[in-house]
């Protein structure tokens, strides 16, 4: 059954107790790994698109000299970010970012591109606000079995799973907007551990989906997910290249 009632899973932070501060596979270890692959200056300006409650911003501010900025669509999550000390945060959508052209050295978009309404517009916007050779650091879900994608997109839960695409669609989409993809790494093992942690916290995946949404059928959700075989990837692209 398809319904108009939709749950924003990323705002249900209590559901993710037990998976750590960063509500996504890989946690801060994956973010640090990604940053180690980029040639960024100590005082580089980084924007965390979809910063949520500011866990990554707080961690990176504590451990690096980077100038951190954050944006998120959720006022509820931004309030938490603000309470934990993040000052340079703004309520904005990825498709329309309140930054001047070429202002940033890197953009982090971690498990967020797949929940945006228009990923193409967002990628174009990322390209606009990055300096030449600036980095786009993207980690997110992808679909390992494209035949199962349609059913997963119809689930009444707004999560990264619904907007996940196959690898063959993601790379050209990024490169179309003036980026050169430097690195693609599979991190599906991190997704397995993340899922195991959710099971540990909630007793089973079925229980997790029951708590996540009162109107989503947990069996339907699990069936759709297992058909699409979601994986997790890290992609690093630099502005400029084939088209830029």
């Amino acid at each position, binding site marked *: 059954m398809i319904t108009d009632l939709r749950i924003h899973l990323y705002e249900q932070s209590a559901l993710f107790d037990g998976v750590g501060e960063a509500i996504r596979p890989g946690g801060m270890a994956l973010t640090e790994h990604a940053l180690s692959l980029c040639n960024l200056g100590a005082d580089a300006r980084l924007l965390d698109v979809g910063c949520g409650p500011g866990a990554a911003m707080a961690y990176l501010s504590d451990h690096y000299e980077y100038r951190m900025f954050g944006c998120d669509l959720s006022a509820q999550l931004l309030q938490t970010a603000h309470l934990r000390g993040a000052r340079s945060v703004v309520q904005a959508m990825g498709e329309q970012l309140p930054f001047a052209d070429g202002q940033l050295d890197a953009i982090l978009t971690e498990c967020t591109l797949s929940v945006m309404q228009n990923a193409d517009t967002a990628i174009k916007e990322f390209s606009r606000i990055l300096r030449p050779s600036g980095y786009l650091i993207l980690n997110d879900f992808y679909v390992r079995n494209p035949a199962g994608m349609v059913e997963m997109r119809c689930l009444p839960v707004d999560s990264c799973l619904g907007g996940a695409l196959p690898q063959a669609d993601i790379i050209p989409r990024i490169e179309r907007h003036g980026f050169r993809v430097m690195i693609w790494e599979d991190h599906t093992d991190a997704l397995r*551990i993340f899922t195991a942690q959710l099971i540990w916290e909630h007793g*089973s995946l079925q229980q997790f989906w029951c708590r996540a949404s009162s109107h989503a059928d947990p069996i339907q959700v699990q069936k759709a997910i297992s058909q699409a075989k979601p994986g997790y990837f890290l992609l690093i692209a630099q502005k400029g290249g084939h088209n830029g």
Partner: protein
Amino acid sequence: MSEPEQVWICDNCNIPLQPDKVDVAYMGNAFPVELLKCPNCGLVFIPEDLALGKMVEVEKQLEDK
């Protein structure tokens, strides 16, 4: 009236087990959880319902490619 909390004693060291962080590993994947552990010898207690319940669920998940 609530029942008093059950105290588990380490058979080796004869001291109470305490909640502590433990890494659970299966098929090369590991993640931290909180379980009862002996603060002296490190013995970890896994109750039967945990072993037959969500541990099985986790194993199935990690086996799924």
